[in-house]
């Protein structure tokens, strides 16, 4: 009897440690398009939504003008809807926009256009000048801002197997941007193709994660730059089997890393990982508690119920107020694609929760999430139903 009670107590304590699902507002439509127009929420690092003060901003790409272009919409002061879509790219086809929050209801946005990368500071009331960063051909830009005022960008630059990840510090004054000495993140001699970088700032520096192909398959690497210093040598984030099946080649694939910071010393990395290759990609994560200098062991972020189907489009966020971690993705465990999220509390991942409004009829996919300074999680995703596409947003409430 005593043993049974002890077991029960242990079980209960474990359950209590797991994070409960968040409660969300009724979703809002950010934009909707007619048949023949296609919305995309794709970007390196999956940064499609950002919060500055009382303003939420969402960026995406669609072809409503006849060619892919970048658009933004704002939700200002808890209003019941988003502002009309505003085009922020230039005249050519533009792709893969990312956004990060600056102060005073301003946002920094970046995207690819004409094989070059572009930056712009925008707000609900003003759009700054567009400036270029890096050298063509360049792609897959991601940006981040730290609580210490640091702002930076990472991107992949160069042709094919000479595509390497670069980092550039950004100095922003109101709506003006200055790029400070872009440099390679990894200066090692054996580097090979480097793609899809993500960036996060901590109090002690900044971390970059990317897809790296130097070992003959795609692995996730990370490098850390202590504040004011160059990047230290890279480390591999995704763990491989100690005795891999030779028929599987150089190792299972991993791709599309994302990073999120709590603004202090915690950084969470997440990516899609095919180590359980029979069921396709799973969402794996690793957490750093020392500002990105090193990451702890890999953790499977999703629960067992998602094992039989692949997961796609992982996005991560970390809450400043209490260190709650979150990842969101889409998968087809309910036959059609729905958005799920999982929460990491005190080192334990919760079960997978459906994101309210992002599950059910139609296909819901491509989530991007972020926490605001008050601890609310903001999420955007795509909905495809009966030939029409729309972009939706929700926010967690206390």
């Amino acid at each position, binding site marked *: 009897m005593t043993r049974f009670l002890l077991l029960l107590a242990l079980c209960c304590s474990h359950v209590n440690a797991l994070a409960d699902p968040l409660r969300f507002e009724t979703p809002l439509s950010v934009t909707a398009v007619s048949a023949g127009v*296609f919305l995309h929420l794709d970007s390196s690092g999956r940064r499609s939504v950002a919060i500055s003060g009382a303003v939420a901003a969402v960026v995406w790409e669609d072809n409503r003008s006849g060619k892919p272009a970048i658009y933004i919409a704002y939700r200002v002061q808890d209003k019941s809807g988003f502002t009309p879509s505003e085009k922020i790219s230039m005249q050519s086809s533009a792709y893969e926009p990312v956004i990060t929050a600056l102060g005073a209801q301003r946002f920094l946005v970046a995207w690819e256009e004409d094989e070059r990368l572009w930056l712009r500071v925008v707000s609900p009331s003003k759009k700054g000048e567009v400036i270029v960063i890096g050298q063509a051909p360049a792609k897959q830009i991601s940006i981040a801002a730290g609580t210490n005022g640091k702002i930076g960008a990472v991107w992949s630059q160069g042709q094919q197997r000479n595509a390497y990840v670069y980092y550039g510090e950004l100095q922003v004054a109101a709506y003006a941007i200055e790029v400070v000495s872009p440099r390679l993140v990894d200066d090692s001699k054996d580097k090979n193709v480097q793609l899809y970088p993500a960036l996060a700032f901590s109090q002690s520096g900044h971390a970059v994660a990317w897809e790296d192909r130097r070992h003959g398959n*795609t692995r996730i690497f990370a490098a850390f730059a202590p504040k004011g210093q160059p990047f230290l040598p890279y480390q591999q984030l995704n763990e491989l089997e100690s005795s891999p099946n030779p028929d599987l080649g*150089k190792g299972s*694939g991993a791709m599309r890393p994302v990073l999120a910071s709590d603004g202090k010393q915690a950084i969470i990395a997440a990516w899609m990982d095919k180590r359980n290759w029979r069921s*396709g990609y799973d969402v794996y994560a690793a957490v750093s508690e020392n500002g990105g200098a090193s990451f702890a062991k890999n953790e499977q972020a999703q629960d067992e119920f998602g094992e039989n189907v692949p997961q796609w489009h992982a996005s991560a966020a970390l809450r400043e107020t209490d260190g709650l971690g979150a990842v969101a993705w889409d998968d087809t465990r309910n036959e059609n694609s729905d958005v799920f999220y999982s929460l990491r509390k005190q080192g334990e991942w919760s079960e997978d929760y459906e994101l309210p409004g992002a599950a059910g009829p139609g296909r819901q996919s491509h989530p991007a999430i972020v926490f605001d300074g008050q601890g609310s999680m903001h999420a955007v995703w795509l909905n495809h139903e009966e030939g029409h596409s729309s972009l939706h947003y929700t926010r967690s409430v206390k």
Partner: protein
Amino acid sequence: MRYLLLLVLLGAEIAAADPPDNYPFVSYDTGLQQAQQEKKPIFLYFGRYGCGFCAKTNKESFSDADLKKRYVDNYVLVYADAESGGRLTLPSGERITEAELGAQLNVFATPVFMYLDMNGELLFRAPGFKTVKEFVDFDQYVQEGHYKTQSINEFLSKR
């Protein structure tokens, strides 16, 4: 000599990530257009950088000269990298990446071989390593029109 060695090494590295050497593989969107023009079905090969079974298939099956002639003659050959951010434009006008195409077609392990009609409609899919004989059987299933009356498994069970 050193230059030649470098070329050989470079070639070997590229071969680990790409479709078999000397086959006229094209991208998915190009292949869809080509299939319409040439009135041919499509053989769609989904691979991944460093995929061991892809390399095994390239080495043990696609190295067969007769198989190569059969597939080059009978199909528009399309290769997609399941991890690639390379952009494609679908017939609907949507622009997606090769990785997104894999997500839409639920390609979660590589290689996956798909046989499509000239309009891009899926006839059947064959995941994993395949022998020369299996590829020949698949080709007969498509070219002789058996897919119109029976599933691939029904067809194979009678052989």
